[in-house]
């Protein structure tokens, strides 16, 4: 069982309330997008969900087990990818298996052949098999983030969390990375929670959406309920013109400049 239960979660940093009594449940295998402006509590929520932060009040459970510290079955993908730039893509992916290997074995790269093939498999999933031996610091931002995804997959997780995985990427790489995340979660039946601040990407890739504003949950619903009013609720009264990508665009992560221009020209809403 790897459903996620967030139960009355409150997190305070001194006087600041980052999360205020947030509760929801994610059934196993669902792909959830957490939306909100910067400072709305998205990062804190995800960091609590994988145990990097301890909740002030409330509890998070994966299946029936409460989360108290980072553990291998909850994989995390970071905004700044946080891969080790001095190592190549393959070695980075292999660090996902650290918890299954002793210190000396992992230091000398003496993991089992199964672990090593799994690392290459994960790189294949994110389309980087040919770049496996390339040094991470010579890779583009999008490629580095994909190495981060590969590392997460090698952990053999049941839950996949991603904290603004595309915030520092260009639109093309963003779509690509989101596409790989979606595919990987679907192929392996992972329960996934991804935080985003781009509405168009969220609409394109999400099934279910959770909206945060000032640390409170202001929306929780599926695709059909996710409309203009909801966006106003989550983002406040901002100019949302051109925020929506047209529906029905190919989900393969390719960039469609003409498509997004169309969206802007026609007001971009409700197509």
């Amino acid at each position, binding site marked *: 069982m790897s459903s996620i239960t967030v139960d009355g979660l409150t997190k305070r940093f001194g006087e600041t309330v980052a999360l205020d009594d947030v509760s929801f449940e994610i059934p196993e295998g669902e792909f959830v997008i957490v939306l909100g402006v910067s400072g709305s509590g998205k990062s804190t929520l995800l960091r609590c969900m*994988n145990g*990097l932060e301890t909740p002030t009040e409330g509890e998070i459970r994966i299946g029936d087990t409460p989360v108290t510290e*980072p*553990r*291998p079955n*909850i*994989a*995390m993908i*970071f905004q*700044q*990818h*946080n*891969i*080790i*730039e*001095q*190592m190549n893509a393959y070695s980075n992916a292999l*660090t*996902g*298996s*650290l*918890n299954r290997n002793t*210190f000396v074995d*992992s*230091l000398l790269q003496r993991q089992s052949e199964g672990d090593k093939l799994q690392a290459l498999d994960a790189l294949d999933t994110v389309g980087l098999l040919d770049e496996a031996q390339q*040094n991470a*610091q*010579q890779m583009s931002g999008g490629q580095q983030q994909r190495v*981060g995804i590969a*590392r997460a997959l090698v*952990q053999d997780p049941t839950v996949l969390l991603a904290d603004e995985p595309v915030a520092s990427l260009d639109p093309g790489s963003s779509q690509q990375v989101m596409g790989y995340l979606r595919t990987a979660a679907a192929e392996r039946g992972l329960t996934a929670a991804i935080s985003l601040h781009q509405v168009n990407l969220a609409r394109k890739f999400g099934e279910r959406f959770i909206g945060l504003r000032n640390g409170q949950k202001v929306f929780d619903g599926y695709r059909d309920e996710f409309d203009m009013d909801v966006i106003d609720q989550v983002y406040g009264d901002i100019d949302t013109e051109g925020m929506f990508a047209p529906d029905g665009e190919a989900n393969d992560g390719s960039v469609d400049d003409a498509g997004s221009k169309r969206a802007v020209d026609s007001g971009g809403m409700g197509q």
Partner: protein
Amino acid sequence: MSHDDTVRDRYKAIVLARRVRALVFGVGLVVLAVLFYYALISVGFFEANIPTYLPNFLNALRDFFPFLAPTFPFIDPTGVVAYWTFITEQNLIWGGFGGDTPLLGEAGITLAMGFAGTVMGFPLALLFGVLGSGRVTPFPFNFIFRGLMSSIRAIPALVWGLIYIPIATDTVGNLGRLFTDELEEIEDGPIEAMETTGANKPQLITFGMLSQVTTPFIAWTLYIFEINVRIAVSLGIIGGGGLGQVLSVQQGLFRFTNMMATILVILVLIISVEIVSQRIRSALREGDEAQGLVALLLGFPQRMAEAALK
């Protein structure tokens, strides 16, 4: 031209401020001069009576530089030969196979002292350097290791030479400190990422922290190696062997030509070590690790030639 009173006032204030600054500077200069005078007095500089030693010193100078002649063309080639004779007789550069000073001669012994000291000191420097970091050992306890390294540094290598393996000990103090400082600069991100993979503490330190600093660690180790070769020369003078010892023996015999020949070999040795180390370090900085050490060394003559032709 008439000016506003506010402008005049501001001008006066600036003039005053500059005068005050000049006065403070002048007083500072006088204090410095007085301190300098007292320093010279306390080291007995005025009792040394330099003029009486001058003729001796000039004689010694002639021995130091035997290739300088008093008459035209002011160069005496036999002087250079005298240097070379001593260098080859004493096996300073080349010890040959199976001799008393194998292969690299006395210079090799000095180099070996610096190298062995660096290799012996490295593991403890790494251990203390890592344990001295506040991220690895919680706050008050990391100062046990920092304090230990400070104490080692407080005693100069020459003094360690009178007690215990000097270069290795000195390396633990200095290199360890550089490691600790370098570890303060690393990013939190990769450490957190390793936490989320479920890594244990040693894995967290190795992959999350040390992997971020391998390049600077190698560069600092090479830098300490350069310094250690220099320390090896000084240790020779107090009896450690190698070029330093040759130097002190010849000085005792008042063979100034031989002394200068030894100094020249020291110069060549230190500069060679520095050039090689600098080249490796700059290659590491540029992230050329891929081309490897072998390629680096093989390419060295070519790069020197290219640089010379520029």
